[in-house]
């Protein structure tokens, strides 16, 4: 029996003269193909479409084209009005280099590019706080039903009652799951939802004649939180964290005052920890006359277990593309409904849906808003306005509601339990080789946080992440949250099997050991990817964002395209 791995090869070993270093005449490496830009392949002479010949100039009623002999042309031109080309005055003066590919060449080009993507359908995507979970195919089946897929937002309301039912049904699930009073369904993604919630808070404060200036945000907040507060016209101040990675309640209470409009807190937070003092925080903020915004991006860790409404939260966005499994990243679009407390609900945006006693779901827009609220809510609502042209991300509503109904209340609770179980399995399987700064704070929630403490001198989180690419995994979130040095934030989600997690853990243990032992090959990883280590500094300082070939010459502008007279 021969000894295994006699050559001593391990991932990252530099191969000299081996297959990895042998140049092929095409530049391709086995079946991993090099693909040039679309402008660099084909020629402008090639086309995937055959045009029918031009109508014959000067025919006599039944004119014919020379190429097709005796067959009468189907669209003969009247005598004397034949065409030189089809472009009329739009013809360009010079060649402008549109790519020219036959149909199979075009199909191969995009298919080859797609092979260079990494996707949730290919493997684990452990980005922390991003919740890159499997998108169930049942969601897709339902979203593609013609009754949902083919509706248009400008159709008469009577022809889309089913779609309104979906929006309303999902709205009530979200209200029930969060223990809140109302929900704004129109925001298009998480940050849009944050803005919606903060604008509700602003409207509520201004309505009571007490516009305030400051929003408090913890250091470990998602970057969009302070950005949202600033965008809505507030000054942002930090709330410090305790040594165990949670909001410092005493420091927060000391800062509260008549100038504080709201606090924005992520719970569970980006250290992967549940904010145990959340109710006390809310009570303190309310006592000071402010509101509590919760970033609900991490709701998947507590759905079915904790209702944010019970914790005193006034507004929270829910990323349907995280917790409720609608596509995320390049597969989006996102969707970020915002649940609202009783105090904020009257200020939510238009349009909204509501079911009246006769069982009909109405769509309430500007023209009917006042009459509807007088009739059904016993007074005037004070909506801050409109955030989007239509009613929200309908295609995501159908998917999210499918996910909710296919899981049921008990299934959703298990989602949270499994997400937390998987993250703790990662945390405890690695905390002997990677430093877990808050490991002693107890179990983590849906994500495990590590630092670069213990790496050999000169080795960084970036090196480890690049080596993980060689192991066939998308790296985790790096250098976030900022409160941890060289942070690595891993969120496995509940849709990974134990076997899948074990393989990831084995890979991460290997690269962590290499970082601790100062394995020099780590610094040049990835070695097996289509591209080696990229120069990120140059990419940021001098990015080349467009094809630098010859530009298209301008056409001659028509009168209607010219400005001025």
């Amino acid at each position, binding site marked *: 029996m021969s000894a295994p791995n006699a050559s001593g090869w391990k991932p990252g070993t530099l191969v000299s003269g081996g297959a990895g270093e042998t140049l092929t005449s095409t530049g391709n490496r086995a079946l991993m193909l090099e693909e040039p830009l679309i402008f660099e392949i084909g020629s402008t002479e090639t086309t995937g479409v055959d045009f029918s010949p031009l109508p014959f100039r000067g025919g006599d009623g039944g004119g014919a084209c020379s190429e097709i002999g005796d067959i009468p042309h189907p669209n003969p031109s009247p005598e004397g009005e034949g065409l030189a080309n089809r472009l009329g005055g739009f013809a360009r003066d010079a060649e402008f280099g549109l790519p020219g590919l036959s149909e199979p060449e075009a199909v191969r080009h995009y298919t080859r590019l797609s092979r260079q993507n990494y996707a949730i359908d290919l493997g684990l995507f452990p980005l922390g706080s991003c919740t890159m979970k499997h998108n169930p195919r049942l969601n897709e089946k339902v979203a593609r039903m013609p009754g949902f897929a083919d509706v248009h937002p400008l159709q008469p309301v009577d022809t889309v009652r089913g779609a309104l039912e979906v929006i309303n049904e999902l709205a009530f699930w979200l209200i029930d799951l969060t223990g809140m009073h109302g929900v704004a369904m129109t925001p298009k993604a998480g940050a849009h939802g944050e803005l919606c919630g903060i604008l509700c808070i602003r409207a509520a404060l201004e309505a009571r004649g007490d516009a305030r200036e400051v929003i408090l945000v913890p250091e470990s907040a998602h970057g969009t939180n302070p950005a949202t507060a600033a965008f809505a016209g507030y000054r942002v101040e930090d709330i410090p964290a305790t040594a165990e990675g949670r909001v410092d309640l005493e420091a927060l209470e000391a800062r509260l005052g008549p100038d504080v409009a709201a606090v924005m807190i992520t719970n569970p937070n980006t250290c992967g920890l549940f904010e145990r003092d959340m109710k006390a925080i809310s009570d303190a903020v309310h006592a000071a006359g402010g509101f509590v915004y919760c970033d609900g991006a991490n709701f998947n860790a507590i759905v079915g277990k904790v209702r944010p409404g019970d914790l005193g939260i006034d507004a929270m966005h829910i990323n349907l593309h995280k917790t409720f499994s609608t596509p995320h990243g390049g597969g989006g679009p996102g969707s970020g409904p915002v649940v609202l407390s009783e105090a904020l609900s009257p200020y939510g945006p238009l349009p909204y849906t509501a079911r009246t006693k006769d069982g009909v779901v109405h769509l309430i827009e500007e023209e009917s808003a006042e009459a509807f609220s007088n009739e059904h809510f016993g007074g005037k609502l004070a909506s801050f306005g409109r955030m989007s042209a239509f009613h929200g991300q309908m295609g995501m509503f159908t998917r999210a509601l499918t996910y909710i109904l296919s899981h049921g209340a008990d299934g959703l609770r298990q989602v949270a339990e499994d997400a937390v179980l998987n993250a703790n399995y990662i945390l405890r399987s690695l905390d002997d080789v990677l430093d877990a700064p808050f490991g002693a704070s107890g179990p983590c929630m849906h994500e495990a946080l590590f630092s670069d403490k213990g790496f050999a001198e000169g080795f960084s989180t970036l090196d480890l992440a690049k080596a993980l690419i060689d192991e066939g995994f998308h790296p985790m979130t*790096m*250098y*976030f949250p*900022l409160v941890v*040095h060289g942070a690595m934030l891993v969120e496995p989600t509940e849709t990974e099997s134990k076997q899948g997690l074990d393989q990831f853990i084995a890979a991460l243990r290997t690269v962590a050991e290499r970082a601790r032992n100062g394995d020099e090959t780590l610094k040049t990883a990835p070695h097996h990817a289509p591209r080696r280590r990229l120069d*990120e*500094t140059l990419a*940021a*300082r001098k990015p080349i964002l467009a094809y630098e070939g010859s530009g298209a010459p301008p056409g001659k502008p028509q009168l209607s395209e010219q400005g001025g007279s």
Partner: protein
Amino acid sequence: MPRYFTDEHEWIDVEGDTATVGITDYAQGQLGDIVFVELPRVGSEVARGKDAAVVESVKAASDVYAPITGEVTEANGALEDDPALVNSSPEDQGWFFKLTIANKSELDGLMDAAAYKSFCDSL
């Protein structure tokens, strides 16, 4: 020309009624390769402990705080073309901005070189 340091890793050189501000060698080392620096407008007022500039590295974007209150008199235009100066010469050519000193007593709370060094060693 005395030089002071803040616990947010800015340095400040005082020369009469004006001062020059930058980030420390320790700070640039933590940030990694700097790719962009946003400087305050000349003539704008900055307040002690409030954001005055933004520095962006391949890892993160961070605020740079004004060590003292004052009016910005000059911003280092060289950083726009070559933000790497902050990495190569953080405490000299990579300075961020100059400002007038509104209140000299604000300097009292800052660290000197020895205190800053032991502060960094404790991190």
